[in-house]
Each structure stands twice: as C-alpha cells, then as structure tokens.
C-alpha cells in the first residue's frame, strides 16, 4: 500500500468540499463543506504521518479537530444570530454590500 490512494481520496474529498462551497447557498451546507475539507486535510496529515512514521501528523489532526470545533461554535453562533434577525439560512440574502 502506498500513499497515492489515500492522498487521491483526500484530494477528491477536498475538491468536492470546495465545489460544494462555491455552489451551495444553505449556510449549514457550507459549514459541512468546510468540515469535509478539514477532514480531507486530516487524511493527508495521517497519510504523510504513515509515510514519515512521524506522530506530528496525528497530533496535528487532533488539534485540527479542536480547531474545527471552535470554528463550528463561532459559526453556529453566527447562524443563530443571523437567523434571529432575518429568519433565513440562505447566504445569498446577505449581499447588500457589493461592488
């Protein structure tokens, strides 16, 4: 087993996450796309840890998970705040500042 396969999977997941992020309007979908991207990054870290036999990758993954949690917390707080004001989950609604 070599690192190509997991890396390609990670690349595919990352790309799908990115593609979803630029396409979706639902704020939850966007958050989940970001989670997907972070997961794919974790996969890359773990793969290279396996390659180098270095645990730094594993540690990093754990910290990224915490980071994801922190971001999710703030993001959800924002979503709640916005939903209170505008009663919508559509990101495209928030486009009054432009050009």
């Amino acid at each position, binding site marked *: 087993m070599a690192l190509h396969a997991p890396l390609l999977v990670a690349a595919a997941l990352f790309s799908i996450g990115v593609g979803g992020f630029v*396409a*979706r309007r639902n704020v*939850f979908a966007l958050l989940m796309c970001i989670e*997907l991207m972070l997961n794919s990054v974790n996969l890359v870290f773990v*793969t290279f840890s396996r390659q180098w036999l270095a645990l730094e990758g594993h540690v990093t993954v754990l910290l990224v998970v915490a980071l994801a949690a922190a971001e999710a917390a703030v993001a959800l707080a924002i979503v709640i705040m916005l*939903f209170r004001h505008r009663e*919508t989950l559509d990101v495209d609604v928030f486009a009054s500042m432009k050009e």
Partner: protein
Amino acid sequence: MLDAILLVVLSAVAVVGALAMVTRRHPLGSALALIVVMIAIAGLYALLAAPLVAILQILVYGGAILALIVFVIMLLNVRHEDLAHEDGLGGRLGMGLTVAGLLFMGLAAGIHAIPADPFAPPPPGFGGIVAVGRALFRDYAVPFEVVSLLLTVAVVSAVGMAKRRLD
C-alpha cells in the same frame, strides 16, 4: 489484500458520501451523508496505522460536531421556506464541481509525481494513545495550549454573538 479491498471500499464510500453531501438539498440529509463520509475516513485512518485518530474521528466529529450542527438545525426549528432556495443548484454544482475538478486534477498531478514507495511497517505502538499522548503533551504542548486559548476565544465570541440582550 484485505487492506486493498478495504481501501477501495472505504474510498468509494467516502467519495460517494461526499458527493451525496453536497447534492442533498436539505441540511439534515447532508449531515447524514457527512457522517457516512467521516466513518469511512475513520476506517482509512485505521488502515493508515492511526487508531487513536480513527477513534477520535468518530467520537468527536461524528459524535460532537455533527451532533451540534444537527442540534442547531433542530433548535432553530427551520421551516421549509426558511431554507435556502437552492434554485439552479444543479447548474451551480456543475460549475463548482467542474472548477473543483480542475483543482483535483492539479492536486492529482502533484500527488502522482510522488515516488510510489510502499509504506515501511510502523513501529509498535505507532499511533496508539500512549505515543500520541506523549507527543501531544511533551513536544506539542505549545500548540495544544494555543488551541485551548482558541477554544476560549471561540466561546467568548460565540457567547457574545448569540446571547440575547441582557438589558
């Protein structure tokens, strides 16, 4: 051989799950698909000699973060009309995934250029809780502390934004 079959299956599940996630119109559907992806990725971690990470992946991600998201979706009691009008989602997805496909091709080309040396066998205990824990608290104490600070900031920010007016 088993590794290879598992690799293929898990990879396929992850990718299909991911596609399902971005294409589901309702966030709850997406969340379910994401859980599937995460479990598949946990399997891949296990294959890559990272048992602790694999377990934490299921516990923290599948358990905590996604639960939080689903919880908020429920909490907000979103009615159907509050959901984003994902009109023309297909077109946008097509566009987005096409460009993302270009990204994938680039990444894949870069990955392809890495020499395909097979993995060396891992030393005993690699990726286990003892080894990772030691690394985490000895060599990576600083980032760990910073993450704690980060979580504190997140809480302060979240509370500041989401709390109702006290006055």
